[in-house]
């Protein structure tokens, strides 16, 4: 599908390229501003302007953001919170992905009475505004002794992530012919063996999509982080927000920007390396979910 009429006129094509490039620059501008600001010192920030390149690039802001900036009453930089996020993200992503794979396998190929209803009810969970579960979940976590703990946050992310992971795997496995299941059953294979020997080898792409989706969602989460974490267990998004809103000894915009980039780096890295899968996850999660 393309506009032949326009491609005939070279002026039209020039205009299209021009518009596309202008917008590309607009989308890139905030990242550029963040990066250049993070490399300037505070004098230069006050005297220069947003778009100017740093005269004398310095990593002062980066070092401070990582190891000594104040995030409230403590001043250890973002580093401890970065590792908190890692400790939350790794188990939460792995557990929710594995559970989702099994659920999807059951809902696609081992339907039972009520399984469609179950899927519908689960799908619905992708849409609820989480505000409606925040209060009871806080009480449940307290009862379980998991309030303000990393394990508590992992649990919350697993519970509310499974709706999405199940959806991803179910939609993927529906596309695998049921004859494969029947044939394996004739050979005497059961539920688990069929999963291991028939489905698992075909699942690499959907595992990649799901892991990337979950990784981005959980790394970027702020709502659960701010409600269910305490001092010492906060994820990086919460710490970044605290850092920006703490102004002991004057505002250091360069440190804010370096901190923001640090918080964004893991997901940006994944996007650059595996963008194709990222987009697939977005559209699968969005259009179908």
């Amino acid at each position, binding site marked *: *599908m393309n*506009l*032949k*009429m*326009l*491609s005939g006129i070279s002026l039209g*094509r020039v205009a*299209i*390229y021009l518009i*596309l490039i202008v917008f*590309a620059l607009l*989308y890139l501008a*905030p990242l550029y501003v963040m990066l250049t*600001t993070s490399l300037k010192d505070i004098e230069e*920030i006050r005297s220069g302007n*947003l*778009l100017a390149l740093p005269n004398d690039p310095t990593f002062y802001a980066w070092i401070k953001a990582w190891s000594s900036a104040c995030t409230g009453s403590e001043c250890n930089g973002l580093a401890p919170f970065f590792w908190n996020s890692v400790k939350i993200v790794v188990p939460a992503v792995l557990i929710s992905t594995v559970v989702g794979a*099994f*659920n999807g396998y*059951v*809902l696609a190929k081992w339907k*039972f009475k009520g*399984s469609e209803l179950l899927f519908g*009810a*689960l799908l619905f*969970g992708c*849409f*609820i*505004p*989480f*505000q*409606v*579960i*925040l*209060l*009871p979940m806080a009480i449940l976590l307290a009862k379980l002794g998991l309030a303000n703990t990393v394990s508590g946050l992992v649990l919350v992310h697993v519970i509310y992530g*499974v*709706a999405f992971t199940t959806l991803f795997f179910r939609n993927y496995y529906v596309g695998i012919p049921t004859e494969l299941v029947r044939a394996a059953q004739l050979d005497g294979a059961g*539920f*688990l063996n069929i999963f291991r020997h028939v489905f698992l080898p075909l699942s690499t792409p959907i595992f990649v999509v799901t892991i990337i989706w979950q990784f*981005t969602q959980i790394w970027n*989460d*702020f*709502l659960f982080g*701010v409600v269910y974490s305490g001092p010492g267990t906060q994820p990086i*998004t919460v710490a970044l*927000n605290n850092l*920006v*809103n703490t102004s002991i000894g004057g505002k250091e*915009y360069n440190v*804010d*920007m370096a901190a*923001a980039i640090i918080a*964004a780096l893991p*997901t*940006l890295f994944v*996007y650059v390396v595996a963008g194709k899968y990222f*987009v697939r996850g*977005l559209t699968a999660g*969005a259009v179908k979910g």
Partner: protein
Amino acid sequence: MLNLLEKHLPKIVIAPTTVAMIVCMYGFILWTGLLSFTKSRMMPQWDFVGFEQYVRLFDNPRWHIALDNLFIFIFLFIAISLVLGLLLAIFLDQRIRNEGAIRTIYLYPMAISFIVTGTAWKWILNPGLGIEKLLRDMGFVDFEFRWLVDPDMAIYTIVIAAVWQSSGFVMAMFLAGLRGVDDNLTKAAKIDGASAIRLYWHIILPIMRPVFFSAIVILTHIAIKSFDLVQALTGGGPGYASDLPANFMYTFAFNRAQMGVGAASAMIMLFGVLAVLIPYLYSELREKKS
């Protein structure tokens, strides 16, 4: 025995998820619903007072500001994202060189958290050092741009940042839709001598209807849930001029010890989502059946 186990294995495997779903989604929604009819403040308690909390909620001017903001935000955020996403998708669909690279640039904000987006835009829109200073340095000495600290304009800064973050995603959805349009259709239209604009307006856009639908539902969903962006960009301020319902709920439920009012506001948010979602799912299901 082993056979019996094998027979029920699928149900056993999915049982934990089923239990978690019933308790932590539907059970919790019910719990919040019930709580919204009680006197609860600091701690949940079960003296039922009917719609008192809802009355208090709708008597609160701050809630009305949050609702008004939500309508402004939803309308502008969706309208601008749709127009921008669609135009960029159409332009990108003209056999563009380096399409992949441009697409990557349009979409990368979606990988970033709203907290980072908010932090970045807070700096860019900084009154005094941000865009304002940039334009003054360029010679527009009287240029003023202080939306971030202007109670009437703060909500629009949230629109700007949200559009920056999400419009690339809308572009990707439309691009996928455009790629699915049958080439013969456009060829036929061209033979009939239809102009490019007529072609898009009368033939392509009607085919894109389902994409518009999905995009609107997703963007509405993002908008109603928007909490992080407000928290990072304006903190709901100045005062509470740029609060959205999600921020209102958080403040009242967790900072102000007004659980009942918080629960009531959460239920209103849920009904808001349902009002958009149910017609959507209904039309989807009907389309599948026909």
